[in-house]
């Protein structure tokens, strides 16, 4: 995972220091077996698209690659209704936003994962809650 994420990937220790809320284990629409919940990672990148949809909200994130250019990551969040109950709405993120987010990466090493939390939005700490269902 680390090599693929390149410069955008930080250590889990950094996540802990950021005070990201510990998520409650949850996959809703299908099982969460495909995500590595033991080894969350941090992605730093630019939002290409924020898909405010069911069954899952998605963040399409462009992360700078070591070899130059961007790699696109698909980050799966929970449902619209649960995001809304936590304070999110369809304008919480928009294309072009610079974000630092935690994810639980796919075990198979592809560029995707389960949303863990929004650490920074456009350079400022985010108050939007992380993943809880």
């Amino acid at each position, binding site marked *: 995972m680390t090599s693929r994420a390149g410069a955008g990937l930080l250590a889990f220790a950094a996540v802990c220091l950021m005070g990201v809320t510990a998520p409650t284990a*949850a996959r809703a629409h299908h099982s969460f077996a495909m995500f590595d919940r033991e080894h969350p990672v941090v992605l730093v990148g630019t939002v290409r698209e924020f898909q405010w949809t069911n069954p899952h909200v998605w963040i399409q994130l462009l992360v700078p690659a070591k070899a130059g250019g961007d790699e696109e990551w*698909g980050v799966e969040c929970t449902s*619209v209704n649960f995001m809304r109950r936590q304070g999110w709405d369809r304008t919480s993120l928009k294309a072009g936003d610079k974000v630092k987010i935690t994810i639980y990466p796919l075990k198979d090493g592809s560029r995707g994962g389960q949303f863990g939390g929004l650490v920074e939005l456009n350079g400022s700490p985010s108050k939007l809650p992380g993943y809880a269902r």
Partner: protein
Amino acid sequence: MKGGGLRRTGSAVAAVATGLLALGLWAGAAALGGPRAATNEAPGMTALHADPGQPDISGVWLVTQFFTFSPDRALPKLKPPYDALYAKRMKAFDAGAPIDDVTADCLPPGMPHIMVVPYPFEIMQTPGRVTALYEYAGQVRRIYLDGTQNPAGSDPTYYGFSVGRWQGDALLVHTTDIREDTQADFTGLPHSDALTIDERFRRLDPETLEDEITLTDPKAYAEPFTVTRIYKLHPTWTIGEYVCEENNRNQSLANGQTGFGVEPAAGGAGVKP
């Protein structure tokens, strides 16, 4: 003719309004009496009950533990070949490549899975009927208390056919005619076409609903399997829309494994704010 029709309609509206007002007064009085005070009905809304003395289990509820059918991860005593089938699913699950999850393709979870999903549901009580409206995939369970028989005969369906009756403070529900391909939980706990389900709903306190669920399946389980599930009231929540087909990027793959749409959804599915 037209005017007469309108007048008649007007009278009907007035009659209904009067009835609702009377019911509202009754509901208000009942609320003062105790058992109705715990509901989460919005001001001005009226609860319709078949019987003023009927226990009240209405409200928006969310299960406290989910993921596995049993909160303590206990399992029914599976008989062959269901034991081997489940072992295969768990092996794939542990390897991070879960298989056979019918919900991956937006098919409904069905019974008994819907009772343990991490989404809220709303129970409504109307004359002769208890209805559960689930946020997850917009599903519905209708529980008939008025002697209605299964109009589908014995055709198996995702939620089966449910009849119920009150026994003291408990609602007893018996469900039959459940499709064999529903699973009991996200791990793929199987059952056979012989499955019947008995439930015992009770409101333990204003904030807490209990459902004791017994799965009886002589083909797949060596003996009936009972779990006790707890749901908490969420009085400020409303049930939101959830259309699974809107932007499902988790379709199952050719090998039965649950997929993950790493790349942007085809055609750019999704709302662009």
